[in-house]
C-alpha cells in the first residue's frame, strides 16, 4: 500500500427550521412545543435585556457592552439544554446562556457596569465569570470537563468562544487536551462571522470552523446557529455524550452579530449594509415566531402581553443593580489571597485613610 488513505473525514451541518418557520420533521420528529415556547420567551427576554444595556450605556449608566443581537438562538438553546449540574464557562457574549443557567441577570449588568461583585454569583450556580482575554477560557472548559470526569459526576462543562477566539493557541491546547482526556466538555463556537473588524475569511483558511475538530480526534459539527431547534438537538446530543463519558464535542454555531462589536465599536466602518440585511432575514427570533404562529402557539396579543412583562423584568434588573450599595473602596484588596499578606494590609489601611479624609 504505497499510497494510501490514512484518514477520512467529513463534517456535517444541521438545519431544521427554515426561514419561513417550517420544521424538517424527519430530523426533529417530535418538536417539544412547550420548549419551543420557553425558548421563544427567553430569546425575547434576552433581546430586551441586551437593548436595555445599550441604552444604559448611552446614558452613562453602563460600561462597555458586547451586544448579543442576532445570536439569541445559540445562547438560549444551549442554556436550556444544560442541567443545573453542568458547568458553564462563558466567553463574554453569552448573557443569554448565563441567565438561562441561573446567573442573576442584574449581576451581569453590574459586572459590565464596572462592579466586581457582578461576577460573584450565588454559590449553587455553576458558572465561571466572563473571560475577556480572548480564547483563554477554552482550556478552562477542558479542565472543568476533566474535573467532572475524574469525580465521575454525570455532568458536562460547556465552554463558549467566538470565531476569532479559535485562532488563539489556547483553543488548540484546550481541544487537544479534552480529546486526549476524553473530558466531559462541550465546546461551542459562536461563529458570528466577525472578530471586531476581521471577517472569518481573514481569520483562517479553513472552510468551516467545525472541521478543526479533526485535528483533535474529536467529533465536530456545524449547525445553523439561528435555528433554535437544530441548536437544541446538537447541544443535547453533545451534552449527553459529555455527561456519559463519551468525550468532548466541538459545535460551530453559525450565526451573525447584527450589532456593533461593543459599544466602543462602529461596525459600519468595516462592513456592508447588504451583508447585515442578508442576515437580518435570518433573524432567529423571527424564524421561531413564524413557526409558533403557524402552529397556533403564539399570536400578536400574547406577544404584546409578554413584551410588557419582559419590560417590567428588565426594569427590575436595572433597579436591582443600580440599587446595590456602593462597593467599599477597600474591597479591591478583598480576596486577593486566602489571607491578606501584611504588605497588603498596610496598603489597605493607606487607602482607607485616604478615603476617610
Amino acid at each position, binding site marked *: 500500500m504505497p499510497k494510501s488513505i490514512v484518514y477520512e473525514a467529513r463534517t456535517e451541518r444541521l438545519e431544521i427550521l427554515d426561514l419561513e418557520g417550517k420544521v424538517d420533521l424527519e430530523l426533529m420528529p417530535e418538536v417539544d412545543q412547550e420548549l419551543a415556547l420557553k425558548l421563544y420567551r427567553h430569546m425575547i427576554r434576552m433581546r430586551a435585556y441586551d437593548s436595555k444595556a445599550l441604552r444604559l450605556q448611552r446614558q452613562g449608566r453602563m460600561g462597555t457592552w458586547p451586544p448579543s443581537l442576532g445570536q439569541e438562538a445559540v445562547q438560549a438553546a444551549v442554556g436550556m439544554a444544560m442541567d443545573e449540574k453542568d458547568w458553564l464557562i462563558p466567553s463574554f457574549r453569552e448573557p443569554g446562556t448565563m441567565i438561562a443557567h441561573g446567573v442573576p441577570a442584574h449581576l451581569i449588568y453590574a459586572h459590565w457596569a464596572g462592579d466586581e461583585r457582578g461576577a460573584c454569583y450565588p454559590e449553587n450556580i455553576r458558572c465561571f465569570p466572563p473571560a475577556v482575554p480572548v*480564547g483563554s477560557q477554552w482550556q478552562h472548559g477542558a479542565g472543568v470537563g476533566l474535573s467532572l470526569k475524574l469525580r465521575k459526576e454525570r455532568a458536562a462543562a460547556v465552554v463558549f468562544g467566538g470565531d476569532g477566539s479559535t485562532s488563539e493557541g489556547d483553543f488548540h491546547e484546550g481541544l487537544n487536551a479534552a480529546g486526549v482526556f476524553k473530558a466531559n466538555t462541550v465546546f461551542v463556537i459562536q461563529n458570528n462571522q466577525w472578530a471586531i473588524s476581521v471577517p472569518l475569511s481573514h481569520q483562517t483558511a479553513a472552510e468551516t470552523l467545525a472541521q478543526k475538530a479533526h485535528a483533535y480526534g474529536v467529533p465536530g459539527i456545524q449547525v445553523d446557529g439561528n435555528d433554535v431547534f437544530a441548536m437544541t438537538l446538537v447541544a443535547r446530543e453533545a451534552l449527553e455524550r459529555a455527561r456519559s463519558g463519551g468525550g468532548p464535542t466541538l459545535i460551530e454555531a453559525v450565526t451573525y452579530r447584527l450589532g456593533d462589536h461593543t459599544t466602543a465599536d462602529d461596525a459600519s466602518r468595516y462592513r456592508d449594509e447588504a451583508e447585515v440585511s442578508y442576515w437580518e432575514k435570518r433573524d432567529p427570533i423571527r424564524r421561531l415566531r413564524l413557526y409558533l404562529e403557524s402552529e397556533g402557539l403564539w399570536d400578536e396579543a400574547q406577544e404584546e402581553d409578554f413584551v410588557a412583562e419582559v419590560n417590567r423584568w428588565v426594569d427590575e434588573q436595572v433597579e436591582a443593580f443600580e440599587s446595590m450599595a456602593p462597593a467599599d473602596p477597600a474591597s479591591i484588596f478583598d480576596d486577593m489571597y486566602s489571607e491578606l499578606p501584611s504588605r497588603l494590609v498596610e496598603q489597605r489601611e493607606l487607602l482607607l485613610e485616604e478615603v476617610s479624609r
Partner: protein
Amino acid sequence: MSAQKLSIAQAVRDAMRDEMRLDPTVLVLGEDVGVDGGVFRATEGLIEEFGAERVIDTPLAESGIIGLSVGLAATGFRPVAEMQFMGFVYPAINQIFSHAARMRNRTRGRLSTPMVIRMPYGGGIHPPEHHSESYEALFLHTPGLKVLVPSNPYDAKGLLISAIRSGDTVAFMEPKRIYRAFREEVPDGAYTVPMGKAAIAREGSDCSLLAWGAMTRVCLDAAEALSAEGVSAEVVDLRSLNPLDRETIFESVSKTGRAVIVHEAPRTAGFGAELAADISEHLLLELLAPVRRVCGWDTVFPLSKLEKHYLPNRGRILSAVRSTMEF
C-alpha cells in the same frame, strides 16, 4: 518643517506613515489595524496608503503576531506590531522574551529582530477587565528589550520613529488615557527623539518627581499644586526606560535631595523599585529623605467603579512629597 496640532494617537499614526514612506521594509501588523484603522484609530489611513501587504490584519493571536514578526524581522523587514491592549500581551510573552529579545545575542549578531511592539497601556478609560494594565516592569527585567513611553505627541512621534529605526526589539507603550486628551504641535515628516534621554518636564529644586507616560501629567499637576505650598518640585519625564538616562535622574535627585517615583503598575517589584534602589545606592549621602514610591496597589486593576481608588493621583503624590519634605 511645518507642523500640525496632533493628539498622541495621531502622532503615533503619523510616525508610522512617515517612516513607511521612507522605508519600504516597514510593515504594520496586528488585530484590526487594517480596514478598521485600529481600535484606537492609531493606524487610520495606513491601509489605504500602503495596501494590505504592508498593513496586515492578522488572525486573533498575539503569540502569532509576534512569532510572525520574528520571522519577518530576521529576514529583513521592520515590523511594527500592535497588541490591542498591553493587558493582552501575555500570550505573546514567550515569543517576545524567549525569541525577539534574544535573537541577536544568541546568534552573536548573525540574526536580529528589529521590531516595535506598540501597546496602549494604563488606566483611566473605564474599560472591562484586562484593559488597564501596565506591564513595563516585566519588559524591563528581560534583557534585550528597549522600552519607551512617551507622554506627549511630539515625543510619541519622534520616539516611535527612533524605535522603528533602532535595530532592536522595542516595547512602545502608549498612554491610552491621554491618547486624545490634548493636541500639541508636531512637525510634519520624519524626525527622531533620541532614546536614552529623559526630559525635564518642569524644573524645580526641592523634590524630584520621576514618572513616565500618563503619570507625567499627573505629576505636573501635583507640582503645580505643590508650588502653591511653596514646594518646588522638578518633574522628570523618563520617556525611555531602557536605555535609561540615569545621569539626568541622578543629577536631578542630587540637586533636590529628594525623590518620589510615580507609576501605575503595582508597587511590588515595579520599575519604581529599580529606580529607588538605584538612587538610594548611588546617592545615599545626598538624600535628604527616603525615596518614596506612589504606585498602583498590589491588587488586580479594579473595574471602573473603584478604579479611581487604585490609580496614583494628585492627592497621593502630594502626601508623598510632603512626607518627604518633612522627613
